């Protein structure tokens, strides 16, 4: 029933309002005395050099790609788990095949060294 979800929507709105008030009101309570060095990037007191917007090697790039696939596969388990008691042995075999395929992929990426850093 969509009406069941109305309280969740209300909670979302209340939480958002609270966060907004908590973040906006103190803005008018504190002093305001900006200067260039205050709003500079903090680099442990040294003069900042360069920008952080540059290419950074991300060592876990491959793991992140794999994560997306595995996470989607985990999502498939949810509806299956809810109706598992009705599916009985049929559900077990079906999911056994699914888990076997998942495991083959998992063992493969492990052996290929995708979980190691380059």
């Amino acid at each position, binding site marked *: 029933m969509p*009406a*069941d*979800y*109305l*309280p*969740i929507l*209300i*909670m*979302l709105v*209340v*939480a*958002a309002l*609270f*966060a907004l008030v*908590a*973040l906006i*009101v*103190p*803005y008018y*309570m*504190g*002093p*305001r005395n*900006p200067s260039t060095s*205050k*709003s*500079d*990037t*903090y*680099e442990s007191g040294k003069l900042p050099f360069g*920008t*952080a*917007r540059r290419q*950074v090697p*991300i060592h*876990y790039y491959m*793991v*992140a790609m794999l*994560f997306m696939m*595995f*996470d989607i596969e*985990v999502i498939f*388990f*949810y509806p299956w*788990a*809810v*109706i*598992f*008691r009705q599916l*009985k*042995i049929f*559900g*077990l075999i079906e*999911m056994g095949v699914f*888990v076997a395929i*998942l*495991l083959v992929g998992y063992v493969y990426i*492990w052996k290929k060294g995708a*979980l190691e*850093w380059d």
Partner: protein
Amino acid sequence: MDWIQTLLIPIVYSTILVVILLTGFAYLSYVERKLVARFTMRFGPNRAGPFGLLQPLADALKMMFKEELSPKNADLPVYLLAPFLAISTAVIGWAVFPFASRGFSVLGYSVPPVLADVNIGLLYVAAVTSIGSYAVVLAGWSSNNKYSLLGALRAGAQMVSYELPLGLTLVAVILVVGSMNMTEIIQYQLDHTWLIVLQPFAAIIFFIAGLAESNRSPFDLPETENELVSGYITEYGGIRFAAFFMGEYIHMITFGAIISILFLGGWSGPGADAVPFLGLVYFILKIALMIFMMIWVRASVPRVRYDQLMRFCWKFLMPLALLNLVVTAIVIAL
């Protein structure tokens, strides 16, 4: 017209929840400082008020009257969005938690024990609690600071590691109960026994992954104050800085609540069926126990490196969670 029932009661209900969580957060910070101080043989806050009890209030006032600065190189919309996300997403999970065996009625209107008794409760909680990581990543990226960027990268690394074992343990719980409704999960534990007995591995994996999800030590890599200054919050000050703390601590409380509901029977306990208020007390006690464990872990275990965290999650927790899931399925089917 029962707009009071459908609108006013949820509004008041959620307002009370948010207020309780915010004050709970303030005193959790006090409890944590006091406990960690005791673990390391110090006194902890003891100046503001008796036993330092007014310390959270003093901290809050200080944060509010700070000058609000935004770094000039920051991506301002995202920079401001991140603390907003950190606070607001931390509290909304509480909409589906049952607090007692039954509600009560005020002037003929019934106040339910759970704000929204939806049948996808667990899925909702899993979805909502993971948004918190985005606040960390966005904050780290938008600050345009190298420390913050490194913090955000680590937050990303953490996110792609703990989500899998976390998701798989939730599946094992759903498998045993056969429902994602929070009330039914507790009802199952009333009829049978606490799920920590039936699913001990799931409980342990969930606790570890929960530490990672709420950025708690030993997995507080995005922050790592002794190598990255303050990690993703380096460029934040005043109330925006407090917002991330608020998010982290409320996440802790939320995780305590989720573990209590999933594995420790939620509000169940002797006499809780007859006296709903007692159920609320048990629930709070269980959350407090879980939070104490988290603080205890923080005081005892050194921080891990983030490649160690990835290896641990992918090569140990994930196969263990999968094995637990398969064994659970086989036992239930036979």
